[in-house]
């Protein structure tokens, strides 16, 4: 009897384990693209494909996939077929580093798009730089990634293989502060962050600009990203007399936080960065979210003429998930790698050179093309030269663009 049930359990467990492995490998498949023979170049994708932030991560993966398929269809690079390999980092720096190592080991990978989180990028940069493998992030906004930890005083680029199509928090935070102070006319802010690289950095740049403008910080809190109960924080916000809350962090916490602050009786807007600009924020925050604000990188994708084609192609490709906040930037990130591969192949008489990775990295530095989000090119730090930002507000259960612009001093 004991024996039998043990066998039954083992069988059940191994069946379970097999199913789980199957789930895992499904994510790293990606479309093979239809042959045309010749060399296969892989574009790696690293993003959170499962868990809280998967709404943003899957949008990144699908958009890169779309870029690869488009290049294949157009035979953009003669004799080269692109395919993607997507890795799930679960928004964890440790998982990101493992993925980076795996992508470096795959010799066909000539460029990587990702990650979503600045903290994950920190753990990946050195691995990619050692292998001279180019990494283009559509979403990282922490200034230190391109301009060094002392970016406020002396800018120094730490890794030459790292680029991004997103704007930095050095611009995003102050841009939000100017909107909140000058346009929304809020003078007393309660600043909350999640202590992660992205959230804390964003909250700091916002606070500095808000104070400079003459606004008052009436309280600060740091929340635990694993927690769901923010009632103690919400009570503090209510009693602080703040007329606006700024949150540096992402939507899985921002949604419940907004809900609990409003529930506590403080009917004041919550303002955040691109990390809360997601449909799921509205879902999680509930009906009280109306009037909450978010800044996000670039002009609204739907409004740009260059983006119409992207949106149409994305719809035609029938991806299950929305392209979310970073779709256009992910497409442009992938396309900058594709452009670079084309340049390298063209310069080498129609085939890939032996040191293709280093050559592609050098070529990305000099790309310049009209992408989904406008002109795509990189400055001497690897930052996008396009520094547009937009403020969005929640209206009737959806994000509406309120104001676009660039931050100037």
């Amino acid at each position, binding site marked *: 009897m004991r024996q039998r049930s043990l066998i039954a359990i083992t069988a059940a467990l191994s069946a379970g384990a097999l199913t789980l492995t199957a789930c895992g490998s499904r994510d790293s498949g990606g479309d093979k693209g239809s042959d045309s023979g010749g060399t296969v170049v892989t574009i790696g994708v690293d993003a959170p494909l499962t868990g809280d932030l998967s709404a943003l991560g899957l949008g990144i993966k699908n958009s890169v996939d779309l870029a690869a398929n488009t290049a294949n269809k157009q035979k953009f690079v003669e004799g080269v077929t692109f395919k993607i390999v997507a890795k799930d980092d679960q928004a964890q720096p440790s998982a990101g580093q493992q993925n980076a190592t795996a992508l470096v080991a795959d010799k066909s990978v000539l460029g990587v798009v990702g990650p979503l989180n600045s903290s994950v990028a920190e753990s990946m940069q050195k691995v990619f730089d050692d292998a001279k493998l180019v990494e283009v992030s559509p979403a990282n906004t922490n200034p230190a990634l391109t301009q060094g930890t002392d970016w406020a005083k002396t800018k120094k680029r730490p890794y030459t293989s790292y680029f991004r199509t997103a704007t930095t928090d050095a611009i995003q935070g102050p841009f939000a502060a100017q909107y909140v102070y000058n346009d929304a006319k809020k003078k007393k802010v309660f600043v909350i962050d999640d202590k992660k690289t992205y959230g804390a950095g964003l909250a700091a740049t916002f606070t500095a600009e808000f104070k400079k403008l003459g606004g008052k910080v009436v309280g600060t809190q740091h929340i635990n990203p694993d927690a*769901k109960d923010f009632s*103690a924080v919400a*009570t503090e916000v209510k009693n602080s007399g703040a007329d606006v809350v700024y949150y540096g962090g992402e939507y*899985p916490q921002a*949604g*419940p936080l907004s*809900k609990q602050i409003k529930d*506590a009786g403080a009917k004041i807007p919550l303002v955040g960065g691109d990390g809360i600009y997601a449909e799921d924020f509205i879902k999680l925050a509930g009906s009280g979210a109306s009037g909450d604000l978010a800044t996000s990188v670039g002009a609204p994708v739907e409004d740009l003429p260059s983006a119409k084609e992207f949106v149409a192609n994305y719809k035609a490709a029938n991806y299950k998930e929305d392209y979310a906040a970073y779709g256009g930037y992910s497409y442009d990130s992938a396309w900058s790698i594709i452009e670079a591969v084309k340049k390298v192949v063209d310069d080498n008489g129609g085939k890939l050179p032996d040191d293709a990775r280093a050559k592609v990295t050098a070529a990305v530095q000099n790309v310049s093309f009209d992408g989904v989000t406008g002109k795509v090119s990189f400055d001497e730090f690897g930052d996008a030269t396009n520094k547009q930002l937009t403020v969005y507000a929640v209206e009737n259960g959806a994000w509406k663009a309120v104001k676009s612009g660039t931050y100037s001093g």
Partner: protein
Amino acid sequence: MNELPQQLVNGLLLGSMYGLVAIGYTMVYGIVQLINFAHGEIFMTGAFGALTVYVYVLPDGTSMAIALPLMLFGAVMVSVTVAVGAERFAYRPLRNAPRLAPLITAIGLSLALQQAVWAWYPEAKSARVFPQIEGGPFEIGSVTIQTGDIFLLVAAPISMAVLAYFVMKTRTGRGMQATAQDPDTAKLMGVNTDRIIVIAFALGAAFAAIGAVAYGLKYGQIDFRMGFILGLKAFTAAVLGGIGNIYGAMIGGVVLGIAETLATAYIADIPGMEQFGSQSWADVWAFVLLILVLLLRPQGLLGERVADRA
């Protein structure tokens, strides 16, 4: 404005939820000396059970007055089924194995349940919205109480009273006490210990399910990982109150919840402690409290019979 009463209520609510889940840890430990680390996931499956009833069984737009009892029923059914199944297939075969074997099994089961919900429950890869009770918040003096929290305020004490009555007054309850004291002697006296153990698992799961519905109503969302952190906190509450003691679980939960809330709100006001005061430090202070209690009273706040179990 004095925010202390509101913060105490916040802590009491959070703590009542910890307490409801902690009862499951403490009952199972009291009877089979197993720390059932899958209990947090049993709590999680209960929440999904309730959601299933609301979204997939009931017609759209059912009023919460009718839906809530049915959701509660669904939650309890799912949790109890999972818990009893876990006991039967994962723990019972290991009853006489070394203590570490079922512990590792529990951790494995916890991961398996999380991943199962992740993989097979529709759209459970990110958080799902949980139905809310309509109606504005209630103001009592300077304290605001949400409509969803009223369920927790009512359910926690009632559950506790029912459990106390069951354990103290009924025949099965006394059988549980006997099994906890000495399983072999209890068996010789004619107590069906296998049945008692199943009942302990089932009761713990039922309380976790009530806690899970309260969680959904309070935070408006549930996800496949919700049981992990909450399970750890509830386990901490059980140890704080004295593991094996059902009243201790509730007291421990409330003490832990209030400690976390007060640490979030007030530590930063102590001069020189600003950087240790935020919510991200609340867990640290809660565990400092746990260590202090265990140093001074190793058996926990209400614990009595740990010595004869070591």
